[in-house]
C-alpha cells in the first residue's frame, strides 16, 4: 500500500488534495446551511404622473424575518430604503419614485437566523 502511494504521482496528489477538499467541504457545509426561507415580492405600478410613479409591493415570507427593501439607481445607490419586519402575513409598501424613463432596481434581503431570502427585480418609471 505504502509502495503504491509513494510511487504514484496521482496517489501523492490525492494525499494532499483529499484532505484539502474535505476541509473545503466542511467549511462549505458550515457556511451554507440549508436555507428554508421562501421570500416572495410582487410589485405593481398603481399610479403614474409626469413627475412620479407609484408601486405597490407585497412582501411575504414563509417564516418571521427581518430585512429591508431597497430601490437603487445606477446599480448601487439607494433612492428608497425601508426596514421591514415580516411576520406570517403579507406586508404591503408603497414606493413612489421620480419619473425619469429609467429602470430602477428593487432588492430585498431578509434574515431569520441562518435562513435568508433574497429578491431582485426592476421597476420602470
Amino acid at each position, binding site marked *: 500500500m505504502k509502495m503504491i502511494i*509513494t510511487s504514484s*504521482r496521482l496517489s*501523492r*496528489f490525492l*494525499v*494532499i*488534495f483529499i484532505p*484539502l*477538499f474535505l476541509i*473545503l*467541504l466542511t*467549511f*462549505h457545509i458550515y*457556511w451554507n446551511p440549508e436555507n428554508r426561507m421562501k421570500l416572495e415580492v410582487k410589485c405593481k405600478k398603481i399610479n403614474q404622473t409626469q*413627475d*412620479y410613479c407609484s408601486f405597490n409591493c407585497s412582501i411575504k415570507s414563509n417564516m418571521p424575518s*427581518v*430585512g*429591508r427593501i*431597497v430601490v*437603487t*439607481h*445606477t*446599480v*448601487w*445607490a*439607494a*433612492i*428608497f*430604503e*425601508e*426596514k421591514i419586519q415580516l411576520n406570517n402575513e403579507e406586508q404591503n409598501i408603497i414606493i*413612489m*419614485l*421620480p419619473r*425619469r424613463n*429609467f429602470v430602477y432596481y428593487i*432588492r*430585498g*434581503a*431578509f*434574515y431569520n437566523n441562518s435562513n*435568508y431570502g*433574497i*429578491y*431582485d427585480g426592476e421597476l420602470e418609471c
Partner: protein
Amino acid sequence: MENKLLIILIILSLIIRVYPFLILGSILGADVGRFAIISHTWFLKKQITPNLQPYDMAESFFYFPFLLIPYAFEYLGINSITTITFISYATSFLGIVVFYKIARLFLDKEKALISAAFYSFIFDIVFAYNLMGVFPYGVASFFFLIVMWQSLKFAIENKINLPLLFMGFFGILLFHWYLFFGIMLLFFALITYEWVEKKTIKNSLKLLLHYSIVNAIGVIILSPYLFIFLKYFGIANKSENVVDLFSYASGRIKFGPIKALENILFVSYPGTIFSSIYVASFVLFLLSLKSFLKGKESIWLYFFVYTVLFSLFLFNELNLLRITTLLWLLYAFVIGFCFKSKWVLLLIPFLVLVQSASPLYLTYALHFKQEHFVPFVDFSKFNKAIEFIRSLPENSTFLIDGGGAGCTGASANYGERIFPLTSRKIFYFTNYCWADYNRSEYRNRVDLYRRVSINASCCIDELKAYNITHIFIGEKRVGFDPKYFLNNSNYELVYNEDDYYIFKVV
C-alpha cells in the same frame, strides 16, 4: 531582439495606461471618493479616528491601513484622490514587470515576453480593478504578484528575496486582506507540487516560516493602526451589514453550479463582463493540459484546480468571488507557454474590439461604450465645477444628485468627491457595509433625497434644517432634473457649465 521587444512592451504598456489617465484625469468608481473622505476627515480632524462625524455618518468602522497613505500625502498638499490615482496607475504598470519575472521562472525570454504582453494588454488584474474603482483590491493584487513571484522562485530555484517577500505581504496587509486567500491557494498549489514531484514538503514548510516572519514584522509595524481599528473588524459581519452585501450580490447568490462555474471561468469580477477571450484562453489551457501534468508547470494546474474549487464551494458568495481574477494570470501564462513565435503578439491589437476587462478594451470603451463603467464621467468638466465650489463659502453643504448608498456606493456624478477636493461638506453619504452609523438617520436622508427628486419645492425647511446650502447636479443625472430647480423661487442657479448645475438654496 527580446530586449528590444521588452522595451517596446514597456513603452506601449505605459502609453496604454497613461492614455485613460489623460482622458479621465482620475480613476472611476466608488471606493476612491469614499476612502478619500476618510483620509480627508482625519486630516481636518487632525487625528486618525474611527469616528468620522460630523463630516461623514460613520461612527466607527474597520478598513485596511492603506488609508494612512493618502492621509500622509494630504500634509504634503496632495489631495487623496490624486494620491490614489497615482498609486493605481503605478502599481498596474509595475505589475507587468513582476508578471514577466514570474513567467521567466518557467519560460525562455521570448515566451515570457509573449505572456507578459498578453498580461499587460489583456489580463492585467491590477488595472481592471483600479480603473473600475476597486483600487484597494487592485493595488493589493500587485503585491500578491510580488509574493507569488518570490514564492515560486523559492519553490523552483530555492532562492528568495526576503525584503521583496516582506514588501509583497506588507502591501497586502496595507491594502486588502482578501488576497491572503489568494496566497493560501498559491501555497496549496506549491505544497502539492513539492509533494508530488519531490516527495517532501520541507521547502513548503520553510516558505510558510518565511511567510510567518514577514507577516509578524508587518503586523508589528502596523500595530498602532490595528490597535485603534481591529476592535471594529466584526462590523462587516453584523446582520444589517451582511444584508447590505447580500442585496448587492443577490443575482450571484442564486446561481446554480453551472452558471457559477461559467462566472468563475469566463466573467470578469470587475465590470461583470463575459469575454470570449477568457473562454479561448481556458480552451488553450485544456488543450495543453498534458504539459501541465508534471514538472514545475504543474504548479499552475494545481493553482487553477484550487482556485476554481474554492471559488465554487467557498468564495461564490459575496465579495470573495473576486479571487477568480487570479485565473487570468494562468490565462496570460498559457498563451506564452503554447505559442512559440512572437508573431502571436500581432493578435493583440485585434483584441481591442473583443469585450473583456482588458486595458485595451476598457480604453476603447472609454470612448465608445461608457455603460461599462461605474459610472463614467468626464473629470475635466467635473474639475471645473470643483474649481467653482472652492470659491464658495467654507461652510457650504451640498446635497448631491445620486447621493451615495450601498456597500459599494458612489453617487452617479461623483459628488462625494466634493468633500475631499474642496473641504465643503456633503449631505447624504454614506452607507457602508463595514461601518456603524445611524441607520434610521440614513433612511431619513435617502427619503429626503427621493422626495426632493419628485418635487424640488417639497422640503425647503428640511433642507435648511440640515444646513444644506447648495444642490449639485452633474452630467450623469439620476433623481434630480435641473428643470425642476430652474425658475424655482426656492433655488438660485449659481453655476451652469458643461451640463453641470449648482443651485443655491434661497
